[in-house]
């Protein structure tokens, strides 16, 4: 019994020491991820969740409504008369990590056009989603909102996310859904979050956040390797194999097919489609696009903010020290530019 007590005390002491170490020498942002399983087999924002993100650069509140949308009010599926509905699909950038709700680029976009148009935004962004999950969200949830415009955010991580999820594959040149479900560690997360003490640690401990990132990075890397080698690779057609398609080619090809499929589904419901290509930044003044460069995507309207960012690069546009999402200034530039593009392309008429 005494031995057990001593061991418990030692573990507690090591945990406290590790927390101090991380806070002083390698501060990490506390970004608890409130995601749960949806009825359609993938991750969605936990309904009615209300939480904080704290980093050394910012502190924000995130409120999720009863349908898993980042919003401080509930939105009915039925669209009111005269409303232009914009359904948005994407990952943490789209959800608005790093910004208060009023500061996100969606709010900024809405503010810029609210005088002329009755616009309603339904933000279906979920942290961690790739294009494959976004396609499913559009099919299962997005269409219910009867959108007039679908805005999708593209991020460089989508290439790997699409492979890792294993939801879609390309067979004989066609996109095929090969799995119904992708819920990485969601059940475990839901179980752990049912304990108040766990929720407290997840919302306050930098050690926890660091460990979660460390483990998730390791799992992601291993999963991608395994998925790419054992699942994805053999399913590429024989012809592709003969042409020596590299893994990078396959990632690219899957991304292109997914984007084309989303475009097709949006066209089918008579909505308009636009993609926000979120640039990767390597420094305060260096940005690069990761959007697939392919002639098949020529019909998709893509907005890339690199030119706009270069005009404002004396400002801090990404949270460089924390998690790399847009700062309020970055959001403002993107939001205003998106509003201009929607106007210019007559998407709001």
């Amino acid at each position: 019994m005494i031995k057990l007590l001593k061991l418990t005390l030692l573990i507690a002491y090591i945990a406290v020491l590790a927390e101090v170490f991380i806070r002083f020498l390698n501060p990490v942002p506390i970004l608890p991820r409130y995601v749960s399983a949806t009825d359609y087999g993938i991750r969605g924002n936990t309904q009615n969740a209300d939480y904080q993100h704290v980093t050394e650069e910012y502190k924000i509140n995130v409120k999720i409504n009863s349908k898993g949308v980042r919003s401080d009010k509930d939105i009915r599926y039925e669209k009111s008369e005269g409303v232009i509905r914009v359904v948005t699909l994407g990952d943490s950038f789209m959800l608005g990590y790093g910004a208060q709700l009023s500061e996100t680029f969606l709010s900024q976009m809405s503010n810029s056009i609210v005088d002329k148009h009755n616009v309603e935004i339904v933000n279906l962004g979920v942290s961690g989603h790739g294009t494959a999950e976004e396609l499913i969200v559009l099919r299962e949830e997005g269409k219910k909102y009867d959108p007039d415009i679908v805005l999708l955010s593209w991020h460089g991580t989508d290439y790997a996310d699409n492979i890792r999820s294993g939801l879609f594959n390309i067979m004989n040149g066609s996109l095929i859904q090969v799995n119904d479900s992708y819920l990485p560690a969601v059940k475990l997360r839901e179980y752990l979050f049912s304990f108040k003490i766990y929720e407290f640690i997840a919302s306050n401990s930098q050690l926890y956040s660091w460990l979660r990132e460390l483990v998730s990075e390791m799992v992601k890397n291993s999963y991608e390797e395994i998925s790419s080698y054992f699942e994805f690779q053999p399913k590429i057609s024989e012809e592709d194999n003969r042409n020596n398609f590299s893994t990078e080619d396959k990632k690219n090809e899957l991304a292109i097919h997914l984007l084309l499929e989303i475009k097709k589904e949006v066209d089918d419901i008579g909505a308009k489609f636009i993609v926000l290509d979120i640039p990767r930044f390597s420094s305060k003044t260096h940005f690069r696009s990761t959007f697939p460069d392919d002639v098949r995507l020529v019909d998709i309207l893509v907005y890339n903010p690199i030119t706009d960012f270069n005009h404002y690069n004396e400002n801090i546009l990404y949270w460089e020290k924390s998690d790399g999402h847009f700062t309020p200034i970055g959001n403002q530039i993107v939001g205003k530019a998106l509003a201009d593009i929607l106007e210019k392309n007559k998407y709001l008429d």
Partner: protein
Amino acid sequence: MLFNSFEFFLFLPIVLMLYWSLKRDFKKQNIILLAASYFFYGWWDIRFLFLIATTTVVDYNAALIIQYGMTTFKQRVLSIIFLVVSAILFGLINWKNEVAWGIVQNGILVFTFLLSVLIYLLPLIVDWFKVISKDKIALSLSIISNLTILGCFKYFNFFVDSFSNLSLLLFGIEPSVITLTIILPVGISFYTFQSMSYSIDVYRGQLKASKSLFDYAAYLSFFPQLVAGPIERGKTFLPQFQRIRNIENGGVKLGLWLIAFGLFKKIVIADNLSIFVNTVFSPYDNGELITTPENGLMVLLAIYAFAFQIYADFSGYADIARGTAKLFGFQLMINFRLPYIATNPSDFWRRWHISLSSWLRDYLYIPLGGSRGGTFKTYRNLFLTMLLGGLWHGASITFVLWGAYQGTILILYRLFGVESAGEQSKPVMKVLHVIWMFHLVCLGWLIFRAQNVQTIYLFLEAIFTNLFIDQAVIDGVSILTFYLIPLLVYQILQIKYKTLYPQKVMAAIPNFHIWFFTIMSILALSSKLSSEFIYFAF
């Protein structure tokens, strides 16, 4: 395979388990070590293994001739089988599906045949020479073969290019020369020097030649120190392969600590400092940028950072090598003894890369005459030794210049009669000597790190003309301070307790905290941009 790789952390426990499952049978353990070492080395490029097998067979036979004047039929046949099997596995099978490998395969086939004939007839050949003694012929064979391998794989292109440039400079003619694309095998300078010293030690009567080919092959390819040393001497290291190994009391703990601390030095200090160093040096590396750096202070900081990067990188490797060897019951020599507290150049070379500096002293400086032939000859020998020491690091003019620089400062200290400067001084004076010596070493590191002579000139110009404090300098100082404080604190403990392993005499609680800090740093502060060890290239 890199020490700081995931593969190594799977590889090591498996080899340890197999190895210790044969506890009392050191011969079988040697076979396990040989197989593991070849697997470890072949992980880079399986073709390199044929080279090390060649060196092994040649020096094994040469040493037997030196010692006994002959080799037995069994020894010769075993050597030939070893060579032929290596040739088939590592050379004749085209593992990498190289298009032009057929030519190389033919070359390997002819080479293996000729070398096998030579090995078989070696006792007869040395008998034919009546004028020269057998041991001299065998020693010559060993040295020539080692230097030929080094020359072909490390210096061929350099000498051809230098000859071509010289001809163009002196006569305005660019001769038609062939430059082959030869890959530099990892760690070639380390194991050829180790193998050469074995033959020389047998020749000098300081060591008995190994009768067992496998003992010798395991000794030469011992994976913990194969690719970046320490360059072990046969007389201290080979006998460890010829007896039952035990782990000394506390050996596992010390071994694990050395591995952890070596990793800390490599992936926390060296890899993180390399990012800062490269931001200053890299733009100049291809020789196209010819403007003086804006701020000399940044250059100075980058040179200081490189001094600690190369130290943490190389001594980190040496620590991991020693720690890993300890887990197998082997003792490797200490390669670094706090080099940056040296007070003069001779002191520095007694602390920095000790296995190389002592090798150069014993097998080059002393045979050249050492300090026995008067002042001029001593200076000449010192200069030549350091010049060749510089060239040992690589086929580049900057390494030659670095060697010349090291030779020059050694000579200058002797010339002014201050070769032992600072060693017996009072603490304040000693500190001043240490600071001065550190800056002399840093000037050497500028020459060493620069990829061309122009960079050395531009950086020195910046240091002496453009010095100002800006935000980049403040950030640079913060980076340096952040990563160096733990290293300096540990070195202060090493000095205070007069041991390289102060935890041995420290209480349990501080000991626990040192372990905790090291492990947490490896997990949380390691650089995302992991790189190979610098000395793998030498």
